[in-house]
């Protein structure tokens, strides 16, 4: 198991949580990069790597709020495991199936976070932040999966012009 890429992913999560999320936020809606990375690893790597990365990502993401850390670790760990299990059962060639997994994971993470922080105005937060965040993350996911599958490449983009 190569550990360095995962450490770099963890640094990416820390960088995103500390600095970058503010820059990409649109009216308070941000990309759920933690879940995105965890799902990406879960879909394409083996079970042990995926689950350990899920737990580690939960710890890194939850370190800024210790009271939420258990929930983050638990949710993201479960998402990593579930994404890995789904990855063995779905057609990974299909963009839609990967996007559905990603969207479900982001939605689940958002719902758990909303319920843990405050159940008041749950539906407002769900519609105002969680759902748009899911859409935003899915857009990033579509781009990522298209690039990963080679459907978008530098050569193809260059050929357009």
């Amino acid at each position, binding site marked *: 198991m190569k550990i360095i890429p995962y450490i770099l992913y963890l640094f990416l999560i*820390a960088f995103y949580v500390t600095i970058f999320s503010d820059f990409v936020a649109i009216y308070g809606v941000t990309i759920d990069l933690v879940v995105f990375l965890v799902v990406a690893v879960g879909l394409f790597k083996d079970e042990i790597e995926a689950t350990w990365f899920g737990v580690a990502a939960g710890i890194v993401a939850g*370190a800024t709020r210790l009271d939420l850390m258990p929930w983050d670790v638990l949710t993201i760990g479960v998402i990593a495991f579930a994404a890995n299990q789904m990855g063995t059962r779905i057609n990974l060639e299909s963009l839609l199936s990967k996007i559905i997994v990603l969207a479900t994971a982001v939605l689940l993470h958002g719902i758990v976070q909303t319920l843990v922080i405050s159940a008041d105005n749950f539906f407002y937060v769900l519609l105002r932040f969680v759902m748009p965040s899911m859409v935003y993350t899915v857009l990033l996911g579509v781009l990522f999966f298209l690039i990963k599958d080679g459907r978008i490449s530098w050569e193809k983009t260059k050929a357009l012009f």
Partner: protein
Amino acid sequence: MTWFWTVFHRNRRLLNFGLEIFLIILIVFSGNTARPFLGNLVLSIFHYPFAELKESIEGLHSVAEENRNLKNILAESNLQRGFTEEARRENIRLREFLGFDPPENFTLVPVKIVSLEQNRYPYAAVINKGKNDFIDIDCPVVNRFGLVGKVKETMREFATVQLLTDPSNAVSARTVESRQIGIVRYVPSEGMIFDNLPADAVIDKGDQIISSGLGGVYPSGLSIALVDSVLANKGEIKKQVWLRPNVNFNEIEELFVLKSVGK
């Protein structure tokens, strides 16, 4: 030892899950010990470098903002300093002018120049007081150096001053020393001259020229100019005298209208 590795490899998946679940339980249930330790460790390794970077960027941003504010304050201060300096200079000029006593039966009405009419040299000025302030036509106008001109036209709130540099404005004058009387006027091609002076008149360079009081417009004794040069050609009936005006007409600012007390 071989037995250990065999068991480990056979149950690798279970062991990993067991460790993960143990870690999660540790995080969930040991709120005051494991969680702060883990949080501190993760923050110092992963988050701290980026937090420092963010702080530095924000610091740079605030320094740039502060620099902009300080530049604005500096510009305002410079402007204020300019105003203060100008007020100080005006104060000095006015203080100097306090030593100037108006002629008998005249009072000084301070005025400011609104605009200066000029064609190569200034010849008329518009001042900020007029009929409403009882400024009349032909009132003499002076500054702290001497005679500047006279009021030519009056409006309700403004008046026009005909400066001594206007060729049509002639002043009856005399020399302070020899009391020779002549006419001071401005000739565009020659400058200010002292005209109508007989050839035998006693006059030297540096003599002071003052108003004579003849003619009924200007009171006597107002300083006008100094003699700059004298030319007495043989056979001429008049002396040619060039003057250096006391007033620099390009730099006039505060003026005083001499208003007759009786009027």
